């Protein structure tokens, strides 16, 4: 297999990401429908969480004030598709149909090419799926405006890391199809767990402290929504804010490494068994 | 008795075409554009045309799947869409590319389920199934789940499924597509026998013209949503000037001055030892006699015109339908 040098590698990666972007921009109507749905859920969850905050002493629920909570909800709605929490079964489908063999013939490792395509998808979703809920949320609810200069750049880093975590997790559950007949079970479990454990339904810090700490650090899911939303709403001081992003980075690196290892195992299995 | 009646039948689809980066323009495409056709009881009609000519669209309007945009359609005296469920009991439909069988169940269970769906009396069901079992050789795979059947086996199952409620009309959309030669023969043989009874009216679309030659006296050709030919295969040949050919192997080449009355020389091969004539205004017998009289003939054969050629020419000619 050819080894690409670094410069060529970057060019190839960019081309793959661009084609990922273009592929998603052809689903224009589905994008509009999806953004509408995110907005409806934004209203629902925002009203509920604000009612909870209003009923709490001092209007603070789990240390967030009303503006922070509203922002939390709308950022969450915007990020579902950006990090790509749900619905990716492409790898599992290609494994099941055997098409994955064609991926192995390309000079780019499959993890890298799928990651590039996913970042293209991320770029498209950032423009089309993150902006609309944020705009609607800002029109109908008072949202929190960050005070610290570093927050916005840190938020963007956090979102990219969240996407990497989400991609790697999805890749791993899809890759179970190399060994199981049917990857729908693991994918279903991932879908189920990611919603609640990423903090989509409620901020994780509404849970008892020990549970919250566990979910932030010992599982990767918080990195997909909870941490980026915490960063943007400045829930914590600068040190903890940066520390949470560092936790995300560790998870992203670890999971991507696991993806590479799993893919390698799967490839040697395919070679031995002839697919 | 008329079984199928279409009068000025039309079906339009609106499609959105990209016009620039953000604009889409609506465009109306007529898939079926004014078809008039009647089919009598017991007829076997081949309905052919190039891809996108409107064959399947017509069939879907006849079976109540699609609502016509304009015109009238009656099948067995019923209007398909409003009287869909009543019509469903009178017709059988075989889609070559979609299955009406239960994918995960043994084949015989599909037949039992269809008996309930169509409310067929048990005795009638058993008699029809027994007939199909013997004529289509179903016994070997009746207990096999449909997903494990070969395409040929599945198609024999599909045809059985369409006939168990004793329909008056059988619609077949590409029944032989993708089948191997043996299965094609089995399917054609069965349909031919079915048609001979004279009770079932049969209408089939196909890309394989051998189906038509084997099964259908009547051929309807459509193109761009219009009927461009309706009649026998012979009439199609007559209309498009296809002729039989006489091919002869000779002991010695013919003299250059030789002519055959009512026929013309189209090819001379092997240094003049093999010649071909198309028969224009003479019978085969006369031409053979004339040739035998003036040359030493070692062998000869009569070649029937090829329907594929005719139809290919028909499709290629730009929509002259006026």
């Amino acid at each position: 297999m050819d080894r690409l040098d670094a410069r060529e590698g970057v060019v190839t990666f960019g081309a793959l990401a661009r084609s990922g972007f273009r592929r998603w921009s052809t689903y224009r109507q589905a994008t509009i429908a999806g953004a509408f749905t995110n907005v409806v859920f934004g209203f629902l969850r925002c009203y509920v969480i604000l009612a909870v905050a209003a009923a709490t002493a001092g209007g603070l629920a789990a240390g967030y004030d009303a503006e922070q909570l509203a922002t939390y909800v709308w950022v969450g709605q915007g990020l579902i598709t950006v990090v790509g929490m749900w619905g990716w079964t492409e790898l599992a489908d290609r494994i099941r149909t055997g098409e994955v063999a064609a991926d192995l013939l390309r000079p780019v490792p499959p993890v890298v090419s799928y990651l590039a395509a996913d970042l293209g998808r991320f770029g498209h979703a950032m423009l089309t799926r993150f902006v609309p809920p944020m705009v609607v949320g800002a029109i109908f609810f008072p949202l929190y405006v960050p005070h610290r200069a570093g927050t916005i750049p840190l938020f963007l880093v956090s979102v990219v890391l969240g996407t990497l975590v989400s991609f790697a997790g999805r890749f791993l559950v899809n890759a179970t199809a190399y060994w199981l007949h049917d990857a729908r079970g693991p994918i279903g479990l991932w879908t189920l767990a990611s919603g609640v454990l990423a903090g989509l339904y409620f901020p994780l810090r509404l849970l008892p402290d020990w549970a919250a700490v566990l979910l932030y650090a010992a599982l990767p899911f918080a990195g997909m929504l909870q941490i980026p939303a915490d960063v943007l709403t400045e829930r914590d001081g600068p040190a903890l804010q940066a520390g949470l992003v560092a936790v995300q980075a560790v998870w992203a690196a670890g999971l991507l490494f696991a993806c590479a290892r799993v893919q390698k195992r799967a490839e040697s299995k395919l070679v031995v068994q002839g697919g | 008795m008329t079984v199928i009646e279409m009068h000025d039948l039309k079906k339009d689809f609106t499609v959105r075409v990209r016009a620039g980066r953000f604009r889409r323009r609506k465009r109306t495409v007529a898939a079926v554009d004014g078809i008039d056709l009647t089919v009598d009881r017991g007829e076997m009609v081949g309905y052919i045309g190039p891809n996108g000519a409107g064959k399947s669209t017509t069939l879907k309007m006849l079976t109540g799947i699609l609502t016509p945009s304009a015109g009238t359609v009656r099948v067995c005296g019923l209007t398909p869409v409003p009287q869909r469920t009543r019509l469903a009991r009178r017709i059988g439909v075989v889609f070559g590319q979609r299955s009406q069988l239960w994918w995960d169940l043994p084949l015989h269970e599909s037949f039992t389920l269809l008996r309930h769906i169509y409310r067929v009396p048990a005795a009638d069901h058993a008699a029809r199934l027994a007939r199909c079992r013997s004529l289509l050789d179903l016994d070997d795979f009746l207990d096999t789940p449909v997903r494990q059947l070969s395409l040929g086996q599945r198609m024999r199952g599909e045809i059985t499924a369409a006939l168990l409620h004793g329909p008056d009309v059988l619609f077949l959309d590409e029944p032989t597509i993708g089948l191997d030669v043996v299965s094609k023969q089995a399917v054609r043989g069965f349909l031919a026998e079915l048609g001979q009874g004279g009770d079932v009216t049969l209408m089939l679309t196909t890309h394989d013209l051998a189906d038509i030659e084997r099964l259908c006296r009547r051929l309807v050709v459509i193109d761009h949503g219009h009927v461009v030919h309706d009649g026998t295969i012979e009439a199609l040949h007559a209309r498009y000037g296809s002729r039989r050919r006489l091919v002869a192997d000779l002991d010695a080449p013919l003299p250059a001055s030789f002519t055959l009355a009512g026929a013309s020389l189209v090819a001379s091969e092997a240094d003049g030892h093999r010649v071909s004539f198309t028969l224009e205004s003479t019978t085969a017998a006369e031409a053979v006699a004339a040739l035998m009289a003036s040359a030493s003939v070692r062998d000869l054969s009569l070649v029937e015109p090829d329907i594929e050629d005719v139809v290919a020419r028909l499709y290629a000619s730009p929509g002259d339908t006026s």
Partner: protein
Amino acid sequence: MADLRAYGALIGGQFRSIASYRVSFLVEMSSNAMTTALDITTVLVLFGANRSVAGFSLAEALLVASLSSLGFALADMLVGNVDHLKTYVRSGLMDVILVRPLGSLWQLLCMDLPFRKALRVVLALVVLGVAIHLNDVDWTPGRVALLVLSPLAGLVFFGAIFVLSASLAFWWVDSGELGSAFTYGGRDFTSYPVPVYAGWFRAVFAYALGFGFVAYQPALALLGRTDPLGLPAWAGYLSPLVALVAAVVAALVWRAGVRHYRSTGS
């Protein structure tokens, strides 16, 4: 009704089809049950931190949530798969269904009945039992009838919403997730007491679309509480009527959709 036997045969066929994939069936059934558990957990977490939210105690909120959950679980099991309509169109199943002498919607539902969702119904029933136990309901014959009727009305109402949002695909093939704003969105909306919401959003979902009558109004009637939003006490008994209206609208839209059906390819 001879048709009923035909539908029964279809359901039997679907059951035997599923039985040939035992392991996936068990996995999917348990992960399905967990979604209901998570919905209820969410309510517990949000309401658990406080004495009351929007004037409703945790026990009262649980009654609203469990009524919604039971109605939704029933509808999702019996009707929910209609949102695969786009797949049925692409695979040609819709064509096959239309040439058979049975109603198209019932046939579709019977042919793809997701038995794996059954456990959710059981779970929702248990939670409803707990919620009834936690609240001090002053039982009258009317309230007993309401307790039985309102989950059934919820089934019909959510079923109608499922059919309506699936029917969108007849006109707008790329409608994507739009339908889930009203199906799953409706479930989320009905899981909380209506006073939680405000403004035009509340007016649209609760009253114009009728979601307020699925769980909230019946729960008030069961509890004997007056509606802080001013609807009379008998509003809780309207839920079957609202469900019926939704079902009629859904049936008409489905019929129109089938007439508008374009089929696919060859």
